[in-house]
């Protein structure tokens, strides 16, 4: 371009990254080679370029050698590009006179032949040297941050994050799809390893959330759409009808016993189907908000509509309405509402679902009544559960005399879920303790490995051993009901290799508990798409960096916390929620973000006015100036994908940072080296 009257003076640096790069790439040789390329004024190799001295080196060289371009060959630009750009800027250059070469993730870590890897590093470095000569000075754009935060999911992660942010005086919108907040933790009886009661520590937090002046709880609601970008998102929320006026309901629950169903009749979701509820119900006594809900699928005042959905039939006597009296909170005409909210950042804390035990047919869940999932047992031992904490089997009266707890159901299994769910060992031991405490039964734990890496966890394991709980190392082959010996008659028989004793054993028990693993929510992929995040191969949301950015996603302004990022226990979940809240607060406190200036613009003189670019832009950033007969780009809307650039027939659209001459020179560069 015309403005390049100035002589190009490139400084090149190749990083050893300790031995991470140097072990596979001959760094001095790369430096020596690049030093011979035209435009390169100096070329150095250095042990750690990202360290302070490394960055200092760049700044010093810029000043001393009048460098006007900088290239660093080290790790992925997704990791350290900001570091080196800032060093370039501190050295007195425009930060976009910098380019980075990835010779670690894309080279030294993935190849095994030193000569080949070195040769590849040279090619990539040469491409960067070619490219950087064409770089132009650019300015970043500042965008202000809306100080309201959206938190999606109100389990312990969402609750903790919301409280942390709200306590700092910032507004939070907390969306929960169930009628109450609390998530899985609200269902637990005790928590490991301290055995403190889950309700005692969670429910006060829940009511604090419900009454917090800075938190708006949208329960029984789902986020359906997200538009915008970091600092300024527009979020669409679907408010599902609960047929109760949330403002009018005072939580007296008089309507519940008034229901025409004299006895609770329908499977109670909160109690994992072990208890019954009426069509009008509150999930559990401390539910937040303290507002009942009416289930149209079971309420007699609804019937099947023409489209298969439920419509009001008005056939019921509506004794509930009568009981509600002049509060008039019951509203059968309620319909789904769509609301929009403006927020600056988002914390996704959508949690997990438990593995469906039916997918492990050898263990007989669904076939044998006394095979339970761990979540069912949580409700069974819970004082506020369906049996008031009395552990009885499905017949409703007999207590188990012996219980087998099978670990790793739907974990560490290539046929289902390959990962370790992290919490099952500990919660199985917790349940073993509680079952023993409640019933005095013999308890057998069947495990592959006992994993107790947490504060106080190994001690808890010791406590269980002291209590006389059996630990049998072996993954259970099957649970059956056919007896070989008289004492097996009428029992569930567990066949397992006791791998430590070295025998195959048959162990008859009354009750089997399946320690089901944690897996991504059913709709995790939809949520991922909505927030423009990534998922790991197992389906949990992917953090930006496993160590250095564990609550960030690849989408700025979107953070993740809790088990939606991977299985984790309550302490880790809360820690992560706090971290996500801190990230959000840091962003809000800063007040603005700098946007990458990789936007596109149209060279007015060259545009032929064909308009073919206009429908290509997903952000409607391209407009047409009828007067001039030329297209132009609204920079504020452009997000820098370059799709219009790649398809412009007259080549009249230019993308900053990725313009044609930069890319062509890079192509030429990677191929110039033999």
């Amino acid at each position, binding site marked *: 371009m015309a403005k390049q009257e100035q002589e190009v003076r490139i400084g090149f640096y190749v990083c050893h990254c300790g031995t991470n790069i140097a072990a596979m790439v001959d760094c001095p040789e790369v430096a020596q080679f690049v030093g011979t390329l035209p435009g390169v004024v100096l070329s150095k190799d250095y042990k750690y370029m990202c360290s302070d001295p490394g960055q200092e080196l760049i700044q010093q060289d810029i000043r001393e050698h009048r460098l006007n371009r900088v290239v660093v060959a080290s790790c*992925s*630009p*997704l990791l350290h590009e900001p570091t080196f750009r800032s060093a370039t800027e501190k050295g007195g250059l425009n930060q976009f006179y910098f380019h980075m070469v*990835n010779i*670690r*993730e*894309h*080279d030294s*870590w*993935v*190849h*095994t*032949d030193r000569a*080949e*890897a070195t*040769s*590849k590093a040279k*090619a*990539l470095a040469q*491409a960067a040297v070619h490219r950087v000569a064409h770089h132009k000075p650019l300015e970043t754009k500042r965008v202000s941050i809306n100080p309201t935060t959206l938190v999606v999911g109100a389990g312990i992660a969402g609750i903790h994050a919301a409280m942390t942010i709200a306590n700092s005086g910032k507004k939070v919108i907390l969306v929960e799809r169930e009628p109450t907040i609390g998530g899985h933790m609200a269902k637990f009886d005790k928590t490991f390893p301290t055995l403190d009661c889950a309700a005692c520590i969670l429910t006060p937090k829940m009511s604090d959330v419900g009454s917090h002046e800075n938190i708006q709880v949208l329960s029984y609601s789902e986020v359906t759409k997200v538009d915008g970008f970091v600092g300024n998102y527009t979020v669409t929320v679907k408010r599902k009808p609960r047929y109760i006026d949330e403002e009018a309901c005072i939580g007296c629950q008089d309507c519940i016993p008034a229901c025409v169903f004299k006895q609770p009749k329908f499977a109670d979701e909160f109690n994992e189907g072990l208890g019954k509820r009426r069509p009008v119900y509150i999930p559990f006594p401390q539910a937040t908000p303290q507002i009942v809900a009416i289930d149209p699928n079971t309420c007699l005042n609804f019937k099947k509509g023409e489209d298969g959905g439920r419509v009001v039939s008005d056939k019921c006597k509506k004794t509930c309405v009568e009981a509600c009296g002049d509060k008039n909170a019951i509203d059968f005409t309620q319909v789904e509402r769509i609301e929009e909210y403006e927020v600056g950042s988002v914390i996704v804390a959508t949690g997990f679902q438990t593995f469906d035990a039916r997918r492990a047919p050898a263990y007989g869940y669904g076939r044998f009544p006394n095979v339970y999932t761990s979540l069912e047992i949580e409700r069974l031992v819970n004082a506020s559960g369906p049996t008031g904490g009395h552990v009885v089997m499905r017949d409703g009266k007999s207590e188990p005399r012996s219980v087998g707890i099978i670990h790793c159901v739907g974990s560490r299994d290539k046929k289902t879920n390959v990962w370790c769910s992290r919490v099952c060992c500990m919660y199985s031991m917790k349940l073993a303790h509680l079952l023993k405490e409640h019933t005095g039964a013999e308890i057998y734990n069947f495990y592959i490995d006992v994993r107790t890496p947490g504060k106080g966890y190994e001690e808890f394991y010791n406590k269980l051993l002291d209590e006389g709980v059996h630990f049998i190392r072996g993954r259970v082959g099957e649970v059956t009901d056919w007896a070989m010996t008289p004492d097996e008659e009428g029992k569930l028989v567990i066949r397992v290799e006791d791998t430590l004793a070295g025998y195959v054993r048959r162990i008859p028990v009354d009750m089997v508990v399946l320690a089901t693993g944690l897996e991504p929510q059913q709709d995790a992929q939809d949520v991922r*798409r909505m927030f*423009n995040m*990534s*998922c*790991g*191969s197992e389906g949990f949301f*992917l953090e930006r960096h*496993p160590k250095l950015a564990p609550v960030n996603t*690849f*989408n700025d302004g979107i953070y993740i916390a809790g088990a939606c990022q991977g299985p984790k226990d309550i302490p880790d979940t809360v820690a992560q929620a706090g971290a996500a809240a801190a990230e959000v607060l840091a962003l809000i406190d800063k007040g603005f973000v700098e946007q990458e200036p*990789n936007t596109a613009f149209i060279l007015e003189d060259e545009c032929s006015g064909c308009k073919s670019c206009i429908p*290509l832009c*997903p952000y409607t950033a391209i407009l047409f100036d009828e007067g001039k007969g030329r297209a132009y780009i609204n920079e504020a809307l452009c*997000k*820098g*994908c*370059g*799709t219009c*650039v*790649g*398809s412009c027939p007259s080549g009249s659209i230019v*993308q900053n940072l*990725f313009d*044609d001459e930069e*890319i*062509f020179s*890079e*192509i*030429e560069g*990677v*191929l*110039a080296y*033999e």
Partner: protein
Amino acid sequence: MSKEWKPRLVAFFCNWCTYTAADLAGVSRLKYAPNVRVIRLMCSGRIDPQFILEALTKGADGVLIGGCHPNDCHYVEGNYKMLRRFQLLKRMLGDMGIEPERVRLEWISAAEGEKVRRVVNEMTEQIANLGPLGMPGRFAEWDREVESLAAQIEAREGGGCGCGSSGAETAEKEVAHV
């Protein structure tokens, strides 16, 4: 060339999915063939067919394009738009006698480091079997033919009317049909 020939691949990876997947392959220390040189773009939608042609003419034996899976594009649907262009380009390359295996499009998500490894290895092997594309050489040859034709014409016509350049153009067309 005294050195043993090895395939050279140029890859264009989108920043959000495939480039990240390649980073993941690195972090996971998966090993793959060293023949690929990755150029990072923000979106596969940025890929201009000219990039691919340029890479081939400058000596690449194959070009790999990596983008997000359908419906997963960070920019909504840049990958689709590139796909449309890609189909056209494939047809054109076919007409030029370039084997279809030499230009490959793959959807690789940020989680699929393993797929990066598999695709690069597969493609390297395929192209090793196909042999060098040798476009720079072919171009040089074409240039020489064109020049010699032009010289012949000039000699025949005595170079009177200064139409050497237009003569070369027609010659080029003819050569292109050979």
